[in-house]
């Protein structure tokens, strides 16, 4: 630490060059922050800790197929289960197909299975008591400026009403929040009563899209899942039961291999960055050969010179990288406020910063090591005479 001043002034010996290099590093880590935020958002969708004790049961053929509601009492009778609920995908459109958000018809007790969403008791009761009632996530309410008591018309794409009309109108009776900021992405949903859906819809009466099951003992998840699937084995509605994370992870992986795309881009970015900053460091050391020789003359050991040059390159990377990640944090913050949590962008928080800092140090080390060894191996006589 006592050499910090020395390293700092060496770094800014050529101001323009250092500033340009810093800006390149900044751009690279800005990109890293944004892309890692996207990657994290997709990863969170599949791996939230909150869902560990829930199972999802869907039709084995595909989750677009319905299951009979008559399965409910039989699933409830399976040992190891605390509570069973069910829901049905509705797929309604609010005003314009571009406004897409998930909307689902859910059983009365559906929200009880999801303690990570907070909804006041009064609103919970109102939802149960209002036939055409609906509750929405806070992000969605903000996006469309909905208030309690508003009427929300949705255009059905799959389920017209019995009279053939495609318009379903719901009364907004509650707005729920996610307790964990990581789950904000899930505040983008509208739920309404399954009983209303079942009574008014022209199709799919008496059937449900999926069952959600809460385990009483999460250690027995596999046995319970197998027991549920056995209920309908060899019937015409075989089921597939898996943990909620496994279900979501499979769903997300159907969109694209986000990790692969992000990884490939970051590979190209960091390869370029190593070359670019490596070149800067090589130049910096080449120019300073006589100065390094002077340092050695006045008693700096080989190791200290190695350390000085290495610290300089790590400092360069960390300085640019920290600013870049900070900018990424601000950008992500602004986008999330403007567009709500509907965009797949996670907060630039602890894990992203940790990964970023590790990358900065590693890259700083890689680009510094060759020039540093060169500095260490300098022979004072040769260096001072400019050979």
């Amino acid at each position, binding site marked *: 630490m006592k050499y910090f001043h020395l390293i700092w002034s060496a770094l800014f010996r050529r101001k323009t060059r250092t500033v340009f290099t810093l800006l390149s590093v900044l751009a690279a880590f800005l990109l890293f922050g944004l892309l890692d935020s996207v990657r994290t958002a997709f990863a969170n969708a599949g791996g939230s800790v909150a869902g560990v004790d829930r199972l999802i049961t869907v039709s084995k053929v595909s989750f677009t197929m319905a299951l009979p509601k008559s399965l409910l009492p039989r699933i409830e009778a399976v040992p190891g289960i605390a509570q069973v609920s069910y829901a049905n995908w509705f797929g309604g459109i609010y005003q314009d197909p571009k406004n897409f958000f998930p909307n689902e018809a859910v059983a009365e007790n559906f929200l009880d299975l999801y303690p990570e969403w907070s909804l006041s008791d009064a609103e919970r009761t109102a939802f149960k008591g209002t036939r055409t009632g609906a509750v929405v996530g806070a992000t969605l309410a903000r996006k469309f400026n909905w208030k309690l008591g508003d009427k929300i018309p949705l255009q059905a794409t799959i389920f017209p009403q019995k009279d053939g009309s495609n318009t379903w109108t719901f009364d907004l009776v509650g707005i729920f929040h996610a307790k964990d900021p990581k789950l904000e992405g899930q505040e983008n949903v509208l739920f309404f009563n399954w009983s209303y859906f079942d009574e008014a819809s022209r199709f799919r009466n008496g059937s449900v899209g999926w069952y959600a099951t809460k385990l009483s003992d999460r250690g027995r998840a596999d046995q319970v899942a197998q027991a549920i699937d056995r209920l309908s084995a060899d019937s015409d509605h075989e089921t597939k039961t898996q943990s909620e994370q496994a279900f979501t992870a499979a769903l997300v992986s159907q*969109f694209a291999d986000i990790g692969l795309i992000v990884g490939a881009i970051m590979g*190209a*970015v960091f390869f370029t960055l190593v070359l670019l900053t490596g070149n800067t460091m090589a130049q910096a050391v080449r120019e300073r050969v006589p100065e390094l020789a002077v340092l050695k003359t006045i008693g700096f050991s080989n190791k200290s010179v190695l350390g000085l040059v290495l610290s300089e390159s790590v400092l360069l990377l960390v300085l640019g990288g920290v600013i870049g990640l900070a900018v990424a944090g601000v950008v992500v913050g602004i986008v999330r406020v403007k567009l709500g949590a509907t965009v797949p962008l996670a907060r630039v928080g602890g894990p992203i910063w940790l990964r970023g800092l590790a990358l900065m140090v590693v890259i700083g080390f890689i680009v510094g090591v060759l020039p540093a060894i060169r500095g260490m191996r300098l022979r004072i006589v040769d260096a001072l005479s400019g050979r």
Partner: protein
Amino acid sequence: MAVAVVVPIVLLTASPWWLLLALVGVLAAWMAFTRIGRQSWSVTQVGIATIPQRLGSSSVVVVGIAGVVGVLVALLAMGAGFAATLQETGTDDTVIVMRAGAQTEINSVVDHDTAVLVTQAPQVLKNAQGRPIASPELVVVAALAKKSTGLDANVEVRGVGERAWDLRPNLKIIAGRKFKPGLRELLVGKGAVGQFKDLDVGSTLKLNGQVWTIVGAFDSGDAHNSELWGDTDVVGSTYRRGSSTTSIILRLTEAGAFDALKATLASDPRIKVDVSTTRDYYNKQSENLAQIIRVLGTTVGTIMAIGAIFGALNTMYAAVAARAREIATLRAIGFRGLPVIVSVLLETMLLAILGGALGAALAWAIFDNYTASTLGANFSQVVFAFNVSPALLWSGLKWALAIGFIGGLFPAVRAARLPVTVGLREL
């Protein structure tokens, strides 16, 4: 300053290839026939000749720009490939009819009576036997394991009528044979075979508890390649859909008959359907994702380009500093500032073109025809190939030129402005 902003923007947006070619021609003529032009040419030659001495730092410009262009072209090729696959599926003279409001086939239900009424419309083309060329189709979804992840993903199963082949003349059987109507036999698309496990001809597949045999494979060159095809009636009975289907595809007597068909169907109170040409239907499906990928590609490209510009600036400032004495000498013996500016700019843009070509070539070599799949409108996988087209390669090169221009301009101006006396005293 203004030049540094305006020229790259023009380069990026407004310049067709012939305009740039004309500019190059003008530049060449200027260099060949005017005194100052000839001076510029000789200074440029000296600059380029010294590149090998600065190989390390020059490669920063080349590799930096290659990275930008490579990533940009690859991302845009992904969007273009997806859009092309869907757009090629539709034509102007075939029409898709679905239940009103359904948006996509998987959401739609068309009952038998409606199907009959729709195919009887006078605008539907009839074949030699006097039967309407129309296919009642039933789109359902099955979950199969993907080769890449081993996880279940949705594959689209399309039941088709007996005249489906007349509606998709592009479709070719590449292995085995067509399925026989009335049997539980499937024909698999080339793309689906590549993405999902166990879809080889001759193997069997369980759909909703019933065993189906795969009797052949087809290649249509479009979105149908991601599907499994069977007989509508048999698929319907397996999925317990009765006699209802999800859509009717039909051929128009002529492309212009679409409006008349729409009016005919709208005026019939017995049916409630949405009608669109298949071209419109598939174009609409590609819009959203293609747009997202375009925005993503340009954002990533822009941020990387900013990084590359600073890398190029560094390199060229260093190059100019290394040659300060030489440039000052030239100025001292009477060369003007302009040839110096031109030479530094040309040198940077030459490096940029090299980088751009390298990046574009890499993107082409790795990603052209690379197949990937994503979740499409029918809640099932759409298989598509990256399409690295000449137009994309060209726009990658334009990005390279723009980056080179900005990265070279400021060092060039500094070289020309450096007082001769200071320059001569440099190392």
